[in-house]
């Protein structure tokens, strides 16, 4: 078992004819992901890496029986691409695109609430069930199959932590990068509840960062609803207020919400050990299992 993606997930790549889209389609195919179609307006009938391209997501989903998509569409058109994926409808949409205007995402998020689709991202590395499928740009080779679930707002920091886990033989059930934007689809709580319900996940690592209050809300959720143990990490302890740290969502507001301290203390209050270093996170996971 795993969360959201597995061997059977049938994937459309939106924006497959672009540079990134093409490259990562090949990478996903190499990893064994079931990429069944691409969708790019005006490019219907072409092929990319042996995958047939359709003009619309609806056509791709209908003709190839796809149930998920990965979105590499440029920011100016990504909002529309997400609406298209929700409309198809697909069960899972993974939005890799960075730099989507916040108001576009606000509208997508509004629509998302009315659907049963899981949206991951945007501005995220994707999701991987090691040995089965990856949807996104994650480097498949650093992951290994196991019983640790991983949720993270960041990309390379996730890889760092996965590396620490894998080096100790702690494999992953599924790892999901939920993205560094202020408005995202699947949030910590959504992902935590999926792992809680997954029989093959015995511990979860939750890797947060400054900005917003999702980690605080997740802490409350963990305290009330989770039996599966959770270990935490929070990046950005040294970030000054009012400055964005790379991610559009990683900012401590002037009024002092979104600080690392607030998140760490909320998690610790919910019984979640928060590591000071990635190594300490791996230590905690070993303890929890």
């Amino acid at each position, binding site marked *: 078992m795993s969360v959201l993606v597995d061997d059977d997930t049938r994937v459309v790549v939106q924006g497959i004819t672009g540079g990134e889209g093409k490259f990562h389609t090949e990478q996903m195919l190499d990893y064994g992901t079931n990429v069944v179609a691409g969708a790019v307006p005006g490019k219907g009938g072409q092929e990319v890496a042996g995958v047939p391209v359709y003009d619309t997501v609806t056509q791709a989903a209908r003709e190839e029986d796809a149930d998920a998509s990965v979105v590499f569409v440029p920011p100016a058109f990504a909002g529309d691409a997400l609406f298209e994926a929700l409309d198809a409808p697909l069960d899972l949409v993974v939005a890799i695109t960075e730099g989507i205007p916040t*108001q576009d995402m606000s509208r997508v998020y509004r629509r998302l609430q009315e659907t049963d689709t899981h949206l991951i991202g945007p501005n995220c590395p994707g999701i991987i069930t090691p040995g089965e499928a990856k949807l996104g740009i994650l*480097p498949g080779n650093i992951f290994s199959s196991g019983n640790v679930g991983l949720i993270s707002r960041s990309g390379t*920091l996730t890889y*760092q932590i996965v590396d620490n886990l894998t080096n100790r033989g702690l494999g992953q059930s599924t790892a999901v990068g939920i993205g560094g934007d202020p*408005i995202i689809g699947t949030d910590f709580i959504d992902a935590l509840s999926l792992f809680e319900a997954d029989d093959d996940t015995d511990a979860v690592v939750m890797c947060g*960062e400054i900005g917003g*209050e999702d980690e605080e809300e997740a802490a409350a959720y963990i305290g009330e609803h989770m039996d599966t143990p959770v270990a935490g990490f929070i990046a950005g302890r*040294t970030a000054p207020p009012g400055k964005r740290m*790379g991610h559009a969502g990683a900012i401590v507001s002037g*009024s002092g919400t979104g600080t690392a301290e607030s998140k760490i203390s909320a998690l610790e209050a919910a019984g979640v050990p928060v590591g000071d270093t990635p190594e300490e996170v791996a230590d905690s996971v070993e303890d929890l299992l």
Partner: protein
Amino acid sequence: MRLHEYQAKGVFAEAGIPTPASELARTVDEAVEAAEEIGYPVAIKAQVHVGGRGKAGGIKLVDDAEEAREAAEDIIGMDLKGYDVETVLVEEAVDFTNELYVGVTMDRGEGRPVAMVSKRGGVNIEEVAEEEPEAIAREHIDPAFGMHPFQARKVVYDAGIDGAVAGEVASILTTLYEMWDERDGSDIEINPLMVTEDDDVIAADAVFNVDGDALFRQPELAEMEEKAADNELEAKAQEYGFEGSNYVQLDGNVGIIGNGAGLVMGTLDLVDYYGGSPANFLDIGGGAKAERVANALDLVFSDEDVDSVVFNIFGGITRGDEVANGINEALDEFDEIPVPVIVRLAGTNAEEGMEILNTDLVQVESTLEDAVQAAVDAAEEVKA
């Protein structure tokens, strides 16, 4: 992206929101001339991106030409919380009986905009929000429908705004929301929105923050983005293509370069954890092309406070050996490496990569912890 007060007021005025008469001045003479034209009393206001300008001496109210000259001399060229004041706004001083607050921002928790109105204008609204949250009326806007007219009225009446000006305040809030929506605002506010004895309302200050990710479709606002950044290092960062939030200057002496926002933040935290002090945040993004690596190093070397640099790359799709080659090429471009550079590679083919790195120029460490520790130590040595 934050507009200057005068830019924001220009946008507001264009949209039909009443603003005081004002003129921009770059010299003392221009300021006095503007003051004479507008008629006293006037306010002389520093145009820099700093909160609490008044308290810091960046805003002065003057009653005649002599005072105007003095105030302009004080403010133009002053250092306001680290920013050079080059421009002042000379503005009609409005007599008011009341100061209100109106604003529109994105509530990221809800994923939808929120309109806010308060009778407690003219003070720091974030403090009001903390101390007396019920003094701010809030109305969430459905981004699918936009703000309905009734919502503007509802939040205005809920805030307890006097009936005599409620309609006008609701109309200004509606305009504010439309601007926010059409021009990709992130935070837009008027604080204070002054109410005069005759029940006129007028925007005495203006905040207009634009979503940087939406500037591609807001050419007029993009043009307002000051070419001159807030300081030299940030200007250099822009020039090198480390736009927006990918380079942030900090107060310490350990330079930090890495790929990916979370990993760089994590590295900053580790520097702090090991007793060092980060000099900057620099995310060079995916891959490690030689030119980009060279630019990153040059930028961090340009910071005079930097005593050592930790270079932390997690090769994912990009293999460690490719990254190492990129770094070697980049290092070759420097005649001299001015401060110790500690490199740590991880991920795919990391070991091969570390073997390739030119250890005459950089120190190589195999774990994150060791690399950061080494950089902190090196910085301490320089200081000592």
